[in-house]
């Protein structure tokens, strides 16, 4: 190892950082090392990075068009040399459709996470910290959302907003925050009476400041794990909506919709439904591994390691 890298490493790992920046970088480095020490987490991260790269470079990677197939000669071909994953009932190359579909999947997953998780976090922490009538009101609303099956509720929203992948995303996001609110509230309840929160109140901090800066960071790691575990369900809900004609519209290569349309051939041409199923499985697994790894790496209580 060269002199330069040794000193940079030492600079990062020092017990006495000279500045906030150095401390932050050092901590990031330690977190990163802890994350990468867990090889399953690294596998998860590679899967998700792969997904992102595939989505970015879909036009370059896909061997065929995802929309136009050869209806005459290439319907329902099994996996083979020309079409690695076979073709579907319209003669379209499944691999190309999966590659383009990764864009939709990523879009759904990211948007839902970006919309639903913060809503759930905010509702849960505010309810848990405020207590009293505000807690009662917020939690009853949450209960109402929870009482309906997610798909039915999403259906109702899409019916009101109009079909399409964008509205489907909004509908899924609106219906998936309640469990996050529950988790955040439970977590908030365990910390809100602790001395360290009292200490912040004694500094003169406003309730908003306490919730946003002191309570939310404590809830985030369990939320990250829950969101990543939910990803598979979110992809499937999107698929369900697509299947009912309310989500992604037919020619779009959405993975769930592809499974739905492959269902008819499941016995004779298994690959039509199985390939997108595999894709969903792998991506969900990737998210789960990543989530577990993140939870372990983000918790500074393990960082005496």
């Amino acid at each position, binding site marked *: 190892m060269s002199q330069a890298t040794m000193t940079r490493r030492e600079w990062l790992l020092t017990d006495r950082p000279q500045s906030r920046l150095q401390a932050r970088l050092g901590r990031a480095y330690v977190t990163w090392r802890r994350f990468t020490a867990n090889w399953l987490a690294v596998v998860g991260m590679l899967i998700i990075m792969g997904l992102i790269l595939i989505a970015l470079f879909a036009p370059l990677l896909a061997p065929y068009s995802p929309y136009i197939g050869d209806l005459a000669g290439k319907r329902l071909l099994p996996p083979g040399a020309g079409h690695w994953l076979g073709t579907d009932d319209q003669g379209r190359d499944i691999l190309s459709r999966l590659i383009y579909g990764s864009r939709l999947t990523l879009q759904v997953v990211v948007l839902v996470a970006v919309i639903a998780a913060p809503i759930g976090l905010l509702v849960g922490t505010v309810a848990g910290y405020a207590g009293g009538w505000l807690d009662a009101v917020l939690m009853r609303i949450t209960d109402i959302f929870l009482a309906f099956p997610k798909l039915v509720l999403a259906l109702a929203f899409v019916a009101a907003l109009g079909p399409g992948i964008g509205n489907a995303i909004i509908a899924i996001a609106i219906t998936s925050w309640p469990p996050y609110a529950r988790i955040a509230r439970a977590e908030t309840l365990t910390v809100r*009476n*602790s001395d360290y929160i009292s200490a912040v109140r004694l500094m003169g901090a406003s309730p908003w400041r306490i919730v946003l800066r002191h309570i939310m960071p404590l809830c985030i790691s369990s939320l990250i794990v829950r969101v990543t575990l939910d990803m598979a369900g979110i992809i499937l809900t999107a698929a369900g909506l697509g299947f009912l004609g309310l989500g992604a519209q037919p020619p779009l290569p959405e993975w769930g919709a592809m499974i739905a349309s492959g269902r008819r051939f499941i016995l004779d041409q298994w690959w039509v439904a199985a390939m997108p199923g595999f894709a969903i499985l792998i991506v969900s697994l990737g998210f789960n591994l990543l989530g577990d790894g993140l939870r372990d790496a983000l918790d500074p209580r393990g960082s*005496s390691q």
Partner: protein
Amino acid sequence: MNPLLTVEDLHVRFPTRTGVVEAVRGVSFTLGRERLGIVGESGSGKSQTGRAIMGLTPTHAEISAKRMEFDGIDLLRAPPAQRRALRGNRIAMILQDPKYSLNPVMTIGRQIVETLRTHEKVSQAEARKRALAMLEAVQIRDAARVYDLYPHEVSGGMGQRAMIAMMLVAGPELLIADEPTSALDVTVQLEVLGILDRLVRERGMGLIFISHDLRLVSSFCDRVIVMYAGKIVEELAASELSRAEHPYTQGLLDCMPRIGADRHPLPVLERKPEWAL
């Protein structure tokens, strides 16, 4: 008579980024049905010794010992299921930070009842009665009220006594009490010690009493082990503590404030590197 617990050359090591931390370095002692005190400053390895016996050492730590036997059971080689069965049933530990060890979203009473019911088949009503009796035994005023309180609603000392009650309902044969009375006022402290004392004398329980309060240990225990930097530096009969020879033990005794002694500032301990050898 066979000793209840034998520990020989116990080591607990924590591998960390900056090297291995040796929390416990070759601790040996035996315990009969008596009161053994472990004293020493913060970080000297008292809790880790107790946790190793209990099987509560963090998973990434390494434990080794020539011998660690409880009533003929080899604790190092016992299968996890057997250790779990021992834990709480025959060996119990009162953990150091009561507020941390109690579940913040479950009432005190329910936590005691749950502990009791995992060890014994008793009806809900019976369990409640026993839990209340136990709370009263540890001198909690108004036990019925405290039964329904959440941990943040009780005072520091009440939380500590609730923890003690929880450990005692199962009637263990060996109790490891890690600073069980640090948050109690002196009168209640004596009552709680009285309970522990009775358990030792009448039921033949073995007690390891971890504390940094030398005055208390010297008046309560039969024998005292003084630990420093993971090692035993001195072992003596409790009544002999004031005649301790090791400068560390003397220093610890000397830095306590005393009623009537007007010493400002208090003498502090000057640590010598050779003590850790």
